[in-house]
């Protein structure tokens, strides 16, 4: 890939974010490595509780502490380790060079302040503009995210806007200081499908015009396909597969990813029942020995129950964390259904 030669914007190395609770240590993120290059979109996909949101909060330095703590690892942003910065230094980066949008547009805006107030706030602190100038900027931002009548909207309150509009406001707020990285934590999950498509399209076009990178966190493979350049699949606090988006969809090498792909209904195939991954995500307080996916994996055997696999290069630019990915390859060739159809 061409962008491999570019300087990395974000380089996460062996990040471990743990929560020290009364019941025990929850290893929400347990040793993950990934990098984001300038101008690309990295998708992070996984089920609820796999650690994808905690990953994003770790980068933002917003993990609630206590009980949470970055126990180990580095988050290099343009070569600076964010985990070593003070709160004051971190505040200069937050909302300025790295900004974030959240899942729930209905609750992510403060109900008691106007849209303009909330957008201009970040502009005032990071760009040092006066309130008046910042308001003007805010109007410009609202125009860019496609909100009609921005001069009027700026004086309105969040409850006067629809969910899609509010997410646009969130995007305007996040982009107001030209961030280099936008972290989007399930930005479309709470929206209905047509609005989802609009928001993704908006993000794609803004990414191009701003030249920023996006870290897209989602559980929705459709969103990943729509927007990502490369994808990290997370399971139980670890990355289990990491490659570019086309390879991932064409040739998933981890049984978990394979299961996710198979559980998507397909319009071009006549299927009565979907193949689903059995079981649920294991309790983070009580992860199984060996591979964390062994409680649900149809291929799990012997070694999978005793030793945790390392993430290895299965092919050029295609990492996978599985003892049996080669066997899966064989089975795929022979068209064996490894997951049962759901009754």
């Amino acid at each position, binding site marked *: 890939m061409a962008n491999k030669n570019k300087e990395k914007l974000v380089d996460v190395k062996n990040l471990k974010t743990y929560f020290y609770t009364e019941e025990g240590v929850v290893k929400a993120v347990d040793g993950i490595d990934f990098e984001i290059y300038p101008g690309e979109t990295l998708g992070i996909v996984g089920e609820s509780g796999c650690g994808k949101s905690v990953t994003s909060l770790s980068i933002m330095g*917003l993990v609630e502490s206590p009980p949470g703590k970055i126990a180990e690892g580095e988050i290099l942003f343009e070569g600076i380790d964010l985990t070593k910065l003070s709160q004051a230094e971190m505040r200069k*980066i*937050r909302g300025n060079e790295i*900004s974030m949008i959240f899942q729930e547009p209905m609750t*992510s805006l*403060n109900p008691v302040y106007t849209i303009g107030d909330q957008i201009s706030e970040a502009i005032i602190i990071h760009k040092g503009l006066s309130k008046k100038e910042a308001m003007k900027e805010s109007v410009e931002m609202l125009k860019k995210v496609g909100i009609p009548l921005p001069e009027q909207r700026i004086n309105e309150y969040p409850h006067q806007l629809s969910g899609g509009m509010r997410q646009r406001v969130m995007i305007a707020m996040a982009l107001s200081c030209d961030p280099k990285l936008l972290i989007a934590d399930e930005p479309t999950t709470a929206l209905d499908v047509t609005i989802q498509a609009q928001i993704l399209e908006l993000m794609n076009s803004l990414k191009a015009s701003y030249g920023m990178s996006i870290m897209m966190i989602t559980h929705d493979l459709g969103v990943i396909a729509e927007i990502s350049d490369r994808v990290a699949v997370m399971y139980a606090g670890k990355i289990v597969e990491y490659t570019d988006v086309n390879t991932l969809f064409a040739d998933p090498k981890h049984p978990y990813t394979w299961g996710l792909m198979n559980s998507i209904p397909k319009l071009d195939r006549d299927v009565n029942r979907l193949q689903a991954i059995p079981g649920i995500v294991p309790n983070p307080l009580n992860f199984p020995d060996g591979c964390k996916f062994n409680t649900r994996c149809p291929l799990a055997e012997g070694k999978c129950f005793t030793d945790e696999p390392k993430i290895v290069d299965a092919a050029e630019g295609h990492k996978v964390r599985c003892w049996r990915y080669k066997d899966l390859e064989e089975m795929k060739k022979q068209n064996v259904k490894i997951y049962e159809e759901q009754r």
Partner: protein
Amino acid sequence: MFAYFIRRTLGVIPVILGVILVVFILTTIVPGDPARIMMGQRGDPETLKLIRKEMGLDEPTHVQLVKFYKDVFTLNLGRSYRNNMTVIESIKSRLPVTATLAIGAMIIAVVLGVSIGIYSATHQYTWQDYLSMIFSLLGIASPVYFVGLIMVIIFARKLGWVPGTGLGNGEWIYYVLPILTLGVRPMALIVRLTRSTMLEVVHQDYVKTARAKGLKEKAVIYKHALKNALIPVITIIGLQTASLLSGVMLTETIYSLPGLGRLSIQAVTNRDFPIIRGVVLFMALVFVLANLLVDLSYGFFDPRIRYE
């Protein structure tokens, strides 16, 4: 916004009319013949009859009611049976003491209550938090007369820091204990409420958004969280004026202060109906107005209310 104010203000009118009616009914159904109370034991039947006629007490109830409404609206509430002062004059002369007490107590309750509540919430599970929770629990659980007596014993008798009774020549030091006594309960309530709403609010998504913008923690708490957390606190402040007004009666009795509370207690023991009516009406009016003020300030704190 303006329409909301007007609508709320107009909504007070039926409430006031209702209050007047209730006050009339209460003072009519309680036993005791006003004419006899005025004359004491010496009144002969002829004089009593005359007085009843003069006061309109021989009229049918509905006629008396209409007359009462008229009297209230013309501020002609009659004279005390005891010392012949007009009701308005009596209230006027007693009001400053009570107002000082109530306003002082409310200021202490709100200022200290909200600040301690915020501190507790932002320092959850520290010893300061536990301490403030224990004291506020005690504060809520202790009735005014208990707090008052304990304060007198400790601060006036044992330590001798402040006077424990009377008003002296009206120096501020005489107000210290009464104001504290009256303020403890609403303060304790406000501490707990502020703490719990604050804790709820700081976990809201918009607080996360504010942090993600790179705002200072102070701005996050005092700008983004506090304004949201105060909405339920304001409601409680309005409701607390009621317990403040009843607390005033106890406090003024404990500290022998010449305020409205003492006036009304004396009026009740003396069956001084015009004064009872006057004071009860006045207090009800204060309560209604306080809650109107609360309603109006919602419009300021919560934009969602103005347009609905």
